[in-house]
């Protein structure tokens, strides 16, 4: 127990007794997010506004107790897992829409607002919020800011950092500051950009100003069916090579299609080797031309069938399968380990081969979903954690796959973050000097190591490293600087 009676009382004084959880049964679900890592907090606290967030952070700092911020707990790198116990600061009560400005095309919201709600309220002005993680019905804007969340529709429009103009934050040291601006052009150092994607290690966003974009006139979604992943991958290169920037360009392999179809009945061909979802939007005449180009590229590379959806309900059905695909894997295996790596598009086919080889070597079936347009892979290793030793082996296999991505000239994460899951792999990409510079950035925001500890950067001790994680690292190779 790292939370003393004194701190518990201090937290209750700030937010009220009913907004502090500390009974073991109440804490259990806060030990996890969407990933494998677990660690029980000592207390969960629900501040209702900026001042309360500030007071909670200061109280924890005063008692030298770690703080871990949490949105909806849908994250996929262990970012909201309180690795060193202590206090989880949840934003669930801060879910007010503060302002929608259809003229400036911005909205100001609290961090606990679910992503989908932004698009819902913007819809009445013909606008929407572009980044659309697959968890968008649940995940929060605060969590999106922390992870610099992406989504299928980020290919053309960019990820969270391209859509958040400014933020009020409570820093790790407990200062309230404004980063960025209310307008589009902040000057000076871009601290807003530093904060977005910092995975909750620099502070907590308490108000977020987002950009809203107009709903396009015409949207066409194509479902192109292929016999294998190779032909689908070549089509991706051909589409981009033809100068098209689709709103989304997604690929799913056979295993994923079968799970999605079984779970969500969205009309996918379960016997296909791979499908591409290609979405084109804009002015009708332009879209029409692009659809012709995209169809030609698909046909040229061996598409066996191309379906076209123009009505919202038809398009929604095609997307329903994609957005629920990962979760639908629960139908074919009790657990999956969802990886998030990036490779240059030109290395896609070869990397896929390596992924297949590694997962086969470890004996784990693999399902692949990817944001093919930007080379963002999501291999999912299927396993059963109830078999002893399996979790350690699946982490080992995951580490080997990440290694392959890095060696192909890619990155450790496209959108899920480094979190606790992959902090040990950071030396594959960065020198000790790079990492030290990043630590100094933390210091600027007052994080002495207790604010969302053990995330992003490799830590020496005190992070409760589990033996299997050490094993995973050892198996993946030496900590070479790539």
């Amino acid at each position, binding site marked *: 127990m790292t939370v003393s009676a004194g701190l518990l009382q201090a937290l209750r004084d700030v937010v009220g007794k009913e907004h502090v*959880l500390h*009974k*073991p*049964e*109440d804490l*259990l*679900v*806060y030990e*996890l*997010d*969407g990933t494998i890592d677990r660690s029980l907090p000592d207390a969960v606290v*629900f501040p209702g506004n900026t001042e309360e967030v500030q007071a909670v952070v200061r109280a924890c700092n005063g008692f030298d107790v770690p703080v871990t911020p949490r949105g*909806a*707990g*849908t994250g996929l790198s262990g970012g909201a897992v309180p690795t060193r116990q202590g206090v989880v600061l*949840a934003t*669930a*009560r801060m*879910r007010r829409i503060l302002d929608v400005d259809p003229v400036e095309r911005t909205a100001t919201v609290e961090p*606990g607002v*679910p992503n*989908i709600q932004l698009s819902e309220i913007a819809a009445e002005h013909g606008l929407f919020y572009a980044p659309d993680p697959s*968890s968008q*019905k*649940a*995940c929060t804007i605060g969590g999106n800011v922390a992870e610099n969340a992406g989504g299928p529709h980020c290919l053309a429009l960019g990820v969270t950092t391209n859509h958040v103009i400014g933020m009020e934050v409570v820093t790790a040291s407990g200062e309230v500051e404004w980063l960025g601006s209310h307008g589009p052009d902040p000057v000076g150092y871009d601290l807003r950009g530093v904060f977005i994607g910092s995975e909750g290690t620099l502070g907590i966003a308490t108000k977020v100003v987002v950009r809203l974009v107009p709903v396009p006139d015409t949207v066409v979604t194509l479902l192109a069916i292929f016999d294998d992943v190779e032909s689908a991958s070549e089509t991706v290169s051909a589409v981009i090579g033809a100068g098209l920037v689709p709103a989304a360009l997604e690929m799913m392999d056979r295993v994923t299609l079968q799970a999605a179809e*079984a*779970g*969500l009945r969205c009309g996918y061909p379960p016997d296909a080797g791979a499908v591409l979802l290609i979405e084109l939007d804009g002015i009708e005449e332009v879209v029409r031309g692009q659809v012709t180009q995209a169809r030609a590229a698909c046909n040229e590379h061996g598409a066996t069938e191309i379906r076209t959806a123009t009505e919202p309900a038809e398009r929604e059905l095609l997307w329903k399968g994609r957005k*629920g*695909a*990962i*979760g*639908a*894997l*629960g*139908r074919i295996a*009790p*657990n*999956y380990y969802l990886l998030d790596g990036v490779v240059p598009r030109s290395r896609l086919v070869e990397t896929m081969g390596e992924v297949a080889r590694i997962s086969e070597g470890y004996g784990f079936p693999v399902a692949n979903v990817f944001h093919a347009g930007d080379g963002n892979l999501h291999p999912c290793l299927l396993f*059963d954690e*109830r078999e002893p030793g399996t979790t350690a082996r699946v982490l080992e296999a995951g580490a080997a796959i990440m290694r392959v991505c890095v060696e192909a000239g890619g990155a450790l994460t496209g959108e899920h973050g480094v979190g606790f899951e992959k902090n040990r792999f950071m030396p594959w990409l960065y020198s000790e000097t790079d990492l030290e510079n990043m630590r100094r950035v933390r210091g600027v925001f007052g994080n002495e190591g207790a604010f969302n500890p053990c995330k992003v950067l490799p830590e020496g001790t005190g992070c409760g490293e589990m033996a299997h994680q050490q094993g995973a690292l050892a198996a993946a190779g030496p900590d070479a600087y790539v």
Partner: protein
Amino acid sequence: MAASETPGWPLAEDAPDTADLAKCVHCGLCVNACPTYAITGLEVESPRGRIHLARAVAEERIPLTEAVQGHWELCLQCRACEAVCPSGVPYGRIMERARAQLDAAPPSKGWERRLRRFALRNVIARPRVLAALLAPVRWFARSPLRGLLRRSGVLRFTGPLGRLEAQLGRPGRPYRPRDNAGDGDVALFTGCVMSELFGDAHRASMRVLERSGARAFAPRGQGCCGALSAHDGDLAQARRLARANIATFEASGAETIVVNSAGCGAAMKEYGELLAGDPDSADRAEAMAARVIDFSEYLAGRDLPAGRLEGRIAYQDACHLAHAQGISAEPRALLGALDGCELVETEGADMCCGAAGIYSLIQPAMSGELRARKAAQFREHKPDVIVTANPGCQMQYEAAVREAGIEARVLHLAEALDSE
């Protein structure tokens, strides 16, 4: 399932299946669909939280405590989470079995559970007892005494009785199986409370079914579907009632069993699951479940001459129709075909109203919060008619209409379609 696999459970034979629990990959996509999460903002009051507690009890990480009981009992079992779960977690089944554990060894409120079990077994499930008990209720609903009590304000101080009064519409004559026990190709399921307090809905259902060309009848000997008992964790009683209904409907010879109450329909479509462990009944239960069809689902496939209903209609999904049976387009299409009506979509039409079987009686605070959300929508949209397809919801909307201070009729879907 072997008892040794589930050391944490007091009632091993009805313990939540470890395979069902393992299906949850804790992705969290369910949380915002959950009404109790929407109200509390607490993940422990969300499907993921409740499943995680069940896993922890199964793995003996925590004992079955009063706090665990509280979190499970706050669940409405609306199954909105199941509808959005990509992994296909059978949440309803998990929660019924979790509650069976509470029933076997309640950490607290033992007498409340025993009282409920007694009432469900000896009143709700016994048609004559229920009829005798509800006859004065029907009389009271239409008597001048009711108006007097309302105006006096005394009902505010009568706790659950006052809440029941607010939910009471103006029930017509009962409709019991003996009222139409002939034969035909379509059997109507009449249920328990539905047949005593919603006779008008049954009569309307019969007329609408006939207008659609069906020969409908109500087989004698049928009774409560068992859903209320199952939801409360009394699976033994639910199985008894299911077996009785299976025998009745087998003997009826009807090809199709039409159910106009969402909660009953969902439960009866799952008879196969409920009786899977019973070698004598498993196959028959599957066969019966396959013959069950919801009233609107049945009509959607038939040629129903359009009726007429003037005004703005707000259709509110019954959870066990929309989420458990996946039926939400059919009722809207049927209503949309009525002459003279305008369908109004209110926000949260598919979110639980807080009736949830007997939930409004045992969890009045949460039920009230959810009812208030509906009332706020009714105040904003001012519909003339509110239509739903489940008796409990209908009662909750009576109360919500009064809370909203608007003039609106609350009708069962069959009554709306029956208007000419």
